[in-house]
């Protein structure tokens, strides 16, 4: 190690940001892992080492298993739907449609609104009888439906809100990529008589792969991070039908104050995030065409 001027300068510049970053991301991740092997300290009783007991207890916890399944469905639905919609929106807005500025603004709008605020509005939309959905559906003769109170539809409602919130945000990244695509590609394809669909499949889509990877990473993170609307709209109910992992961590940690279980849950969530990251970068990065 050469302790030269550049090294000292470099470390001094990086250190302030790096210390904060490690203190609130890497360090808590490590302490959470350690905590997950100890019991919850209660009153005078200190935490004792319990090995894998917290994890074994999780396997017997029906709410945890339910949260795992719910989150899998939630992620499996929101990620592809919001990405496909984002791509469609970007292609539409990139074309020569009437009212383009309005369309772009409309799609992007949900990104600027606090989830907590729009959750209140969606709460009204889903209200039985006089909520917007029931009012519209009653025009077609459908009866009342308790969207958020019915375990069969509550998770679907959460998915709809998440897709609505996210699609416009991802659209921006696709739009940015589309606008840097050279116009002569399009002209060459037109000369060869290639159809619009073929052009999209053979040229546009492959060129958008780096963007798709970036969007996918963000969509996966949000598939596990975005639970604000659950707190406002259902509180995990009815009967845990909308309990997602992060929401369950919040409930366990801050409503039941069971920090050991919360730590074990957090480790599960971190493992899922790390595993999906590894898959995305290892497997997909090979198929991305960088110029």
């Amino acid at each position: 190690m050469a302790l030269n001027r550049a090294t000292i300068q470099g470390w001094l510049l990086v250190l302030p940001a790096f210390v904060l970053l490690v203190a609130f991301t890497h360090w808590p991740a490590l302490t959470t892992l350690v905590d997950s092997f100890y019991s919850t300290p209660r009153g005078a009783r200190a935490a004792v080492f319990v090995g894998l007991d917290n994890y074994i207890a999780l396997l017997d916890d029906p709410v945890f298993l339910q949260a795992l399944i719910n989150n899998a469905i939630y992620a499996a639905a929101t990620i592809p739907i919001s990405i496909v919609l984002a791509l469609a929106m970007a292609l539409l807005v990139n074309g020569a449609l009437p009212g383009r500025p309005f369309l772009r603004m409309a799609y992007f709008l949900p990104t600027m609104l606090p989830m907590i605020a729009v959750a209140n509005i969606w709460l009204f939309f889903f209200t039985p009888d006089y909520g917007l959905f029931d009012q519209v559906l009653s025009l077609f003769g459908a009866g009342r439906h308790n969207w958020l109170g019915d375990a069969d539809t509550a998770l679907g409602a959460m998915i709809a809100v998440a897709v609505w919130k996210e699609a416009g945000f991802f659209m921006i990244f696709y739009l940015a990529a589309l606008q840097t695509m050279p116009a002569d590609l399009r002209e060459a394809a037109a000369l060869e008589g290639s159809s619009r669909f073929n052009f999209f499949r053979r040229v546009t889509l492959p060129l958008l792969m780096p963007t798709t990877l970036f969007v996918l990473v963000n969509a996966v993170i949000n598939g596990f991070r975005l639970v604000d609307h659950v707190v406002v709209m259902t509180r995990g109910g009815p009967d845990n039908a909308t309990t997602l992992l992060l929401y369950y961590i919040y409930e366990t940690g801050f409503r039941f104050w069971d920090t050991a279980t919360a730590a074990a849950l957090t480790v599960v969530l971190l493992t899922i995030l790390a595993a999906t990251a590894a898959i995305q970068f290892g497997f997909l990065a090979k198929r991305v065409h960088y110029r």
Partner: protein
Amino acid sequence: MIAGRTPIASRTLEAAGAWLLAILWVLPLLYAFWAAFHHSANAARFDPLSPLTLDNLAAAWNAAPFARYMLNTTLLCLTVVVAQFVLCTLAAFAFARMDFWGRDTLFAIMLLQLMIMPDVLLVANYRTMSLLGLVDSILAIALPYLGSAFGIFLLRQTFRTVPQELDDAARLEGCGLLARLWRVYVPLAKPTYIAYGLVAVSYHWNNFLWPLVITNSVNTRPLTVGLSIFASTDQGIDWSIICAATLMSSAPLLIAFLLFQRQFVQSFMRAGIR
């Protein structure tokens, strides 16, 4: 052009689909406006002739300390953006243009944060804050986000595109390291700062779960937490007042976005966030 050869029917269909989607996307906001400016009796009945009112806004404003919440959120966003700009600029410059021992290892460790965000580590970060005696302070809401891997990465990419000749020229004129950073790199990265600043402000204006956990008094709660408490306890199901409060808490960001929409989208694109 391919567009010119597309049949009219399919283009009409495309436009109709685009507009339908757009209307669906603005519907929640349109409804919030409708309910906020109508008496609660008419909030769910869409009669275009029902009278307008400002009572709901006044009622919501008086029912909870929204002015204080707004001040808290503003302070929070200012703290985060200023601190992130300074810290990320310094780190990004070192990563982009300096060759020092341990650089690549530090960079790799830092990038882990792109996958594991502080939002997930609620319980451990809460404990750190209580050890530091910071629970229920605006600083505690901001602290976990100040060292941002995303910000450092973004600025590093931008700094790397600055021509080395400009840097060398400044060096020949006798500029020190910080002077070069301030006179050459920062001005050239302005679009990135604007884009990143807007992203950061909208993220922290809207952030909810961590502030919910770490605050417990009026003097620290940001708008999002204040609004959720207001909507869940005080109002029951008076949609008009809830919508009025909802609009109030989104308004500053919404107005800023509508005014600077072009710049927002453009700077987003120019910053090359891809």
